[in-house]
């Protein structure tokens, strides 16, 4: 059976450096401590439901509680707009990763390059490659993923878990962020 920190895709073994397991408590702390965090929501937000609640709604809660600017990637923008939430940006995953690897980019808000990027809802394999780019070419950036499956290319990643456990992790994260 799959271990908590096995790469979810069996053969996704990048090299000697691999990410560590992230818990909701650590995630909340990292987000709060970051100066310019960024939240990226991938296409699985459109098709994932946890206990009858859309992953898009979880993303909105996390964005609201953390005040992180949110980038809706792929065509997720529409799902946010339909829920009355205005993402800070909509752009392809590849484009935001391309900007995050550029030391001179001014960041989404023009306040400087980001120091933490938080991912959720990415197709596993495209997300893993985006994380690989950032691992190698954006040394100033820490990367964490709130996805259901372990990503060795992130600095820290939620472990492999069941949908139920994942929903609990996300609830706990929202609660921790809310506590301030």
């Amino acid at each position, binding site marked *: *059976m*799959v271990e908590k920190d096995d790469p*979810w*895709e*069996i*053969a996704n073994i*990048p*090299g*000697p*450096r691999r990410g560590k397991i992230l818990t909701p408590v650590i995630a909340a702390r990292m987000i709060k401590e970051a100066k310019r965090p960024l939240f990226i929501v*991938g*296409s699985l937000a459109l098709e994932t439901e946890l206990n009858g609640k859309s992953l898009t709604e979880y993303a909105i809660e996390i964005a609201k509680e953390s005040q992180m600017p949110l980038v809706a*990637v*792929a*065509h997720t*923008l*529409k799902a946010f*707009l*339909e829920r009355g939430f205005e993402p800070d*940006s*909509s*752009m*392809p*995953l*590849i*484009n935001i*990763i*391309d*900007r995050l*690897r*550029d030391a001179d980019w001014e960041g989404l808000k023009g306040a400087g390059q980001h120091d933490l990027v938080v991912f959720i809802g*990415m*197709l*596993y*394999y*495209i997300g*893993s*490659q*985006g994380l*690989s*780019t950032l*691992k*190698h*070419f954006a*040394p100033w950036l820490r990367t964490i993923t709130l996805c259901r499956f372990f990503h060795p290319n992130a600095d820290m990643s939620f472990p492999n878990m069941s949908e139920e456990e994942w929903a609990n992790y996300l609830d706990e994260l929202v609660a921790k962020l809310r506590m301030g």
Partner: protein
Amino acid sequence: MDAIKKGTIFTISDLENVRISIGEIVEELEAKEWEPMGPHPMPGIATLRNWDFKLLNRYKPFYAPLCDMCCLCTYGKCDLTCGKKGACGIKIDAQQARIVLIACCIGTAAHAGHARHLVDHLIGKYGRDFPIELGPSIDIEAPIIRTVTGIRPRKLGDLEDALNYVEVELMNCLSAAHTGQEGAFIDFESKNLHVSMVDNLAKEIADIAQIVGYDFPRGDPEAPLVEIGLGVVDRSKPVILCIGHNVMPGAEVVNYLSARGIGGEVEVCGMCCTAIDITRYEPRAKIVGHIAQQLYAVRSGIADVIVVDEQCVRTDIVEEAMKVKTRVIASNDKICYGLPDRTDDPTEEIITDLVNGAPGALILDLEKVGEVAVEVALRMAPKRAQLKALPDRQELKKLAESCVQCDECRRACPNDLQIPDAMVSAAKSNFDPLAKLYESCVGCARCESVCRAELSPLNMIKVAAEYEIKEEKYKLRAGRGPVLDTEIRNVGAPIVFGDIPGVVAYVGCPNYPKGGREVAEMAEEFIKRGYIVVATGCSAMEIARYKDEEGKTLYEKYTGAFERGCMVNIGSCVANAHVIGAAIKIAGIFARRKLRGNFEEIADYILNRVGACGVAWGAMSQKAASIATGCNRWGIPVILGPHGSTAYRRLYLGRKDKEEDWYAYNVKEGGEPFYFGPAPEHLIYAAETKEEAMVMTAKLCIRPSDNPRGRMIKLSNYIDLHERFYGRLPDDWHLFVRDVTELPPGRRKELARELEKIGWKPMKMPPGKIFDPTNLERFRNGWK
């Protein structure tokens, strides 16, 4: 008198000091006859480096390492993570570019090897002087060969000359990947672009050779409709299944059947591009499908004999065929599968051995392959009639009950398919979830390699989807080959000015994220919007696999002529050359640019003026890597599906937010640097979803040369698709508006208000609103 050959130097007696070189005279005559030679005939590995650097400066290489290490030499493994250098001094960016170079060289070698096999065989059969004649509507018979090498091929022997150039360049590029050779990522990329342009050349050589050698359609817009699908094979007859990309053995099967007068008694069918090409030779042949369906077809036991040629054949094909008592004939020395070489054995002996149980044979004599395949199929078919290849539905439930829900299959599955959940349902006799997986399954069998209960989820999916598979009967228009010069005359101007909003080419392999239906859906969307839509290879097949409510495929609904709103099947992988060829012909025919040895000017023309975009939604192979990178050097952008971002490791991305990147020269403006806007925005890009890809396709068809009306049409499509899938205007649409006249008329007021809100200013328009862009310094003051 014997003909005096080109290159001969001789003296005339009594006229001392008079030496005449016939080679020079012939060249002079040729120059007069068609075109003077351009600046870069047969460019070497660094000849076009400046052009590459122009592209790479704007479209910066973006790397996503799949592996952080290198193990290419005995110093390794070297850990290259986060700036560490390998023992040879290489860093991770150069290493990624190097791996891409190796992939592009493999892709090029596959096409070049294929071309070499065809050209040698056909020269052996018909001689070097066999004419290249593509019919009355095609004067520019080989736009890539002309532009890259300066050769105008008029006979098969000329193709050999072009092929010699391909082989030298390929060798040089591959040598650059050796340890301690090239070291800068940017120069690896230049070599990637070079070898991939050479790949375009190899494909054109291969397709022209087979068109003339096998009398394929020569750009026929009404090429016949042929049958395609796992359900089209008539199993009451003996069946020969040809797999791969090289038509030669399949053609010999057809020839032998017709020589024996039993053409209708044996089913000849194919998988992958061999199938497309056999139907270009014999429209009664059938196409079973592409590589993703290979195991489905082989395991179903439909074939009495499998003939393999080259490329994209499963490497375990003999093992798989043995399970269902199908005999395998390997016909190409590139893939021998450990089979005994029976080339020189008596034909009857080989047939008897195969019928009596030998699993396969290597036969490197094409005519013999044809005869053995047919005779073995005729004798094996009655013996195999009762064969039961797969479990039935009753057994399915029992098998599913043994699943231990370990998730290993899902973790091994490239598409993360929910196999464990489907097993739970199947154990309760609900097979629908299993059957549903069929559409997104790429047929790789990784699931069964890892299964702890020794199940084959792949086989179980196949049994569950039995009904759907049987009903797979579709129509595909046979590959028509090149675009006619006459068609280019009609569409050249509307493409360059933008009235036809773009040419979209669906190309490449079937490693789709969510099944192939998405390709057909994307294609139809752009057909309805008046784009020119073409397809090749697996994508052409995949598009045929979906029907509308009236039971028609896109090939039955839309014209096969290269015009607005068409659905054209150009042909197999090697026929991809004609897509680039069409763009080159626009420069040559519509704009009267000289092609001969003139790569840089033609690529500059295409980049700035020809709104073409490739979509390789399921790109998988090394060939697809070189095909896409080759398009890029010509200035044609390509969109990959999400698997492309994983496997290819490298993209070329533009930054629309960096205004300084989007200046070129406006020749009509006196050559001053001119901001043309971010078009096309990227050269090679990976999309996460079909919707994202469609919006990006519309955007990547925008070109600096669009006239105001053309830009308005392109902009309308971009905005409209974005609003449909994203729910509102794109946030960069204003970057493509140069003047308010370019706003879609029905929404002009509303959009003008939006522009006002963001402080948009109209672009300085050139005189007569004619945009005349070039990225080449030497043309800034006028086209010479």
